[in-house]
């Protein structure tokens, strides 16, 4: 069963957009959608979480799940408003989401509600801004270190 | 069965000094004589041998690993250890904030002293011994425990958790391995009927089948396990790989000497080699006939009876062989985990030690 079919059958009102490549679901339904993928489509691994900044008003979080046999990647997308990007966390069910979501939080500033450990992971905690946002302004100095040539 | 020629050098020196001053030799002269001989041995023999040991280890490690080893300072890199020594001397002696200054400064001296004091009772050759103690073997084993005190001091005073952990491992390890080491050393002592290293050596005078490890063939059943036991427990007591847990580099960065630098570090570094050497020497004395050659030329009535040069040669050959084998083992084996070190000690070595001790006692009775 393809993810599009499975999700349309299980939670028709949560699906916003569906194609062979990906299914876009409502942000607040992502936990249930991931569960459907696990139960119906055999997604055993949350392979990667990516955040994409879509200015001026959107932000996307893209989940790539992996099915082992036959090997395939199943893609879920959620769109959230750029002004208040909040997505429910998957970290309680998929341990790999823990660090993946933290990285998205760190580099794009998407908040994952209910995350057990919602802090920056790669950048220092006192870093300002989220580098992968398209309007990111490079810092002039950091702790006395000149950052601009 | 001490021969006239093998009167310890220190006594000869004491007598000579007394004669020079026209006095009767008394305890004061003996003390001075022992001190002089000990210092001379330490300076002329042990330090170069220790430095040579470092060189040998590095060179051999290099060759075993398909590398060259030190080859830049002096011919074949022979002066490398000396250069390292000079470098260590020239380095800043760093005393971190937060260390227990007195213990921190004092610890290296204890370790250094304990490791080198063992050489006092080693019979290098007939008559060449600083002090022929009646309890030489016991004294030697006691010194190993003394070294632990210095290391605990270093680990505790460094105010560094890795150092502390290293020191704790050292205590656990060395105190445990004293038991099998002692048991193994008791087998030759039992056979020879003495704790004096000279007496044990001379008990093995004669051709190779007089050596305790295969004395008359049948002794081997007790002595071969005892020798392997002494060797293994010796590795552990000297903190050599695979028992180098107190300074396990990949786990504890550098263990108890993490915070030491300069010559203070050198004073931890050199004793390791001194310990290896003295343990190899004691092993060769206990099991391989000490300064006696395999043909029996140095035995009473032999061609080289009492010749100290000949004795020294054989002593060093045997010791060096054991020393080199320790190096070869270090660069071959991975490191044991701390609980396995304890397992090995209490469940493997200790039963073997007890077994060989009982066997030795039985053999002694039968004979």
């Amino acid at each position, binding site marked *: 069963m393809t993810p599009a079919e499975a999700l349309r059958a299980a939670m028709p009102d949560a699906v916003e957009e569906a194609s062979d490549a990906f299914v876009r679901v409502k942000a607040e339904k992502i936990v249930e959608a991931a569960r459907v993928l696990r139960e119906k489509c055999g997604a055993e691994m949350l392979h990667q979480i990516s955040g994409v*900044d879509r200015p001026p008003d959107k932000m996307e979080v893209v989940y790539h799940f992996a099915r*082992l046999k036959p090997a395939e*990647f199943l893609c879920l997308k959620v769109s959230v408003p750029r002004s208040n990007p909040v997505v429910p966390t998957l970290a309680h069910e998929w*341990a790999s989401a823990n660090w993946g979501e933290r990285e998205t939080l760190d580099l794009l500033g998407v908040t994952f509600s209910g995350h057990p450990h919602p802090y920056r992971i790669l950048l220092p905690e006192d870093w300002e801004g989220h580098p992968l946002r398209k309007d990111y302004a490079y810092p002039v100095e950091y702790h006395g270190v000149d950052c601009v040539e | 069965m001490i021969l006239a020629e093998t009167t310890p050098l220190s006594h000869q020196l004491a007598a000579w000094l007394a004669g020079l001053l026209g006095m009767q030799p008394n305890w004061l002269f003996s003390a001075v004589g022992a001190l002089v001989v000990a210092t001379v041995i330490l300076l002329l023999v042990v330090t170069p041998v220790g430095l040579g040991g470092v060189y040998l280890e590095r060179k051999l490690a290099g060759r075993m690993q*398909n590398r060259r080893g030190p080859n830049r300072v002096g011919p074949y890199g022979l002066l490398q250890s000396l250069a390292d020594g000079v470098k260590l001397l020239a380095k800043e002696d760093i005393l971190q904030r937060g260390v227990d200054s007195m213990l921190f400064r004092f610890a290296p001296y204890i370790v250094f002293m304990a490791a080198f004091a063992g050489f006092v009772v080693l019979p290098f050759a007939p008559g060449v011994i600083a002090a022929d103690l009646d309890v030489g073997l016991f004294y030697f084993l006691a010194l190993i425990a003394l070294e632990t005190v210095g290391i605990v001091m270093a680990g505790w005073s460094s105010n560094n958790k*890795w150092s502390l952990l290293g020191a704790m491992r050292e205590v656990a390890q060395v105190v445990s391995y004293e038991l099998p080491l002692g048991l193994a050393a008791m087998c030759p002592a039992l056979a020879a009927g003495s704790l004096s290293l000279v007496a044990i050596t001379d008990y093995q005078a004669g051709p190779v089948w007089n050596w305790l490890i295969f004395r008359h063939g049948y002794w081997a059943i007790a002595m071969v396990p005892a020798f392997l036991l002494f060797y293994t427990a010796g590795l552990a007591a000297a903190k050599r790989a695979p028992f180098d847990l107190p300074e396990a580099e990949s786990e504890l960065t550098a263990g108890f000497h993490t915070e030491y630098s300069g010559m203070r570090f050198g004073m931890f570094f050199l004793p390791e080699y001194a310990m290896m050497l003295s343990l190899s020497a004691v092993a060769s004395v206990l099991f391989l006939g000490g300064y006696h050659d395999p043909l029996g030329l140095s035995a009473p009535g032999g061609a080289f009876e009492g010749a100290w040069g000949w004795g020294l040669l054989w002593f060093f050959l045997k010791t060096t062989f054991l020393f080199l084998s320790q190096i070869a083992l270090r660069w071959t*084996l991975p490191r044991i985990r701390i609980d396995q070190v304890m397992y090995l000690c209490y469940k493997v070595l200790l039963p073997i030690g007890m077994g060989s001790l009982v066997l030795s006692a039985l053999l002694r009775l039968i004979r």
Partner: protein
Amino acid sequence: MTTIQGVRLDEGERAAPALPRDILTEELVFNMGPQHPSTHGVLRVVLRTDGEVVLDSQPLIGNLHRCCEKILESLTYIQGLPYVDRMDYLGALNMELGLVLSVEKAAAVEVPKRAQYLRVILCEINRVISHLFAAGQFGLDMGAFTPFLYMFREREEGLTLLNEVTGGRLLYHYIRYGGVTRDVSDDWKRKCIAWCDQVAAHMDEYNNLLTYNHIFLNRTVGVAIIDRETALRYAATGPILRAAGVPRDLRKDMPYSSYEDFDFKVPVGPHDKGVVGDSWNRHRQRLLEIEESLKIIRQAIAKLPAGDVANPKVTRGWKAPEGEAYVASEAPRGEISCYFISDGGKAPYRARMRGPSFYNISLLSEMSRGLLIGDLIALMGSIDITLGECDR
């Protein structure tokens, strides 16, 4: 939320072991790294221990973070490529392939068959080199110095082989969109086969000296077992997942770059000693994968087709048309993937790189509970991380 020395600890599912407390003891907090001999770079692990027993640990990454993704977004397509090398500097060619494959898929660029084969040959050499390094490094962590240097000897020869083709020893900048930069000579092919023979001849030496050594077995067998479920939950890939008994190898499962043309096996744990998913199996897994890689190299050289090594349509100022793709490939440390989005501009709109080490090391916190410090080193060494790719 427990914190130690200002570091917030991540709560995992496996609780810290309860220890009998008949004497009053205190817990110790250790900072392992960023400067530590066996954290393989600048990883910092904060440990809470009871003596030698680790109660809790928290890996803190990010010391080598350069925001590779931002760099890729701000440079043109061709300028971005040398940066990807710097992610996993021990398997740099596989990193290049990870990015290039997904861009090619999104832009539907055709790659000549010869270029695909060359990619396979060089990436497999790179994989062998990387696994040799990992296995040797693991031995070093276990206190065995010598096998490490023996493995380095073969690695050195492999680096020379790569150098002759690509011009770099560690960072190659060889794979381009639509092909590769340079062709190989017949002489190089002969040398390559000779090198394969040399590595194969030394495998017994490594195994006898390290893998089947009694002490090494005792240190690693049954230690830090990462089972199938844990590995999948944490999205651990590569040798870790395969040693845990999951036959997932993207070269077999989702063949890319003509891997379907070659005959090779996917070794899966448990191997001849130990339990499935323990440290020993992860180490053995790497050594077995080296042998399979050597097979692939030999076949690819024998079958190397004639033709171009690059697609002439991809010029210097080439831009990918609008589109997106997610392609994963098998790097030495696990699955490298790139979620690539193009808006038709001069630079990628988004190139999200998946570092396998990033997900692999996230296991550490949960797996380390209840281990001895020596076992923790075994766990870290057998996971085999590269911080450059973990932090990106």
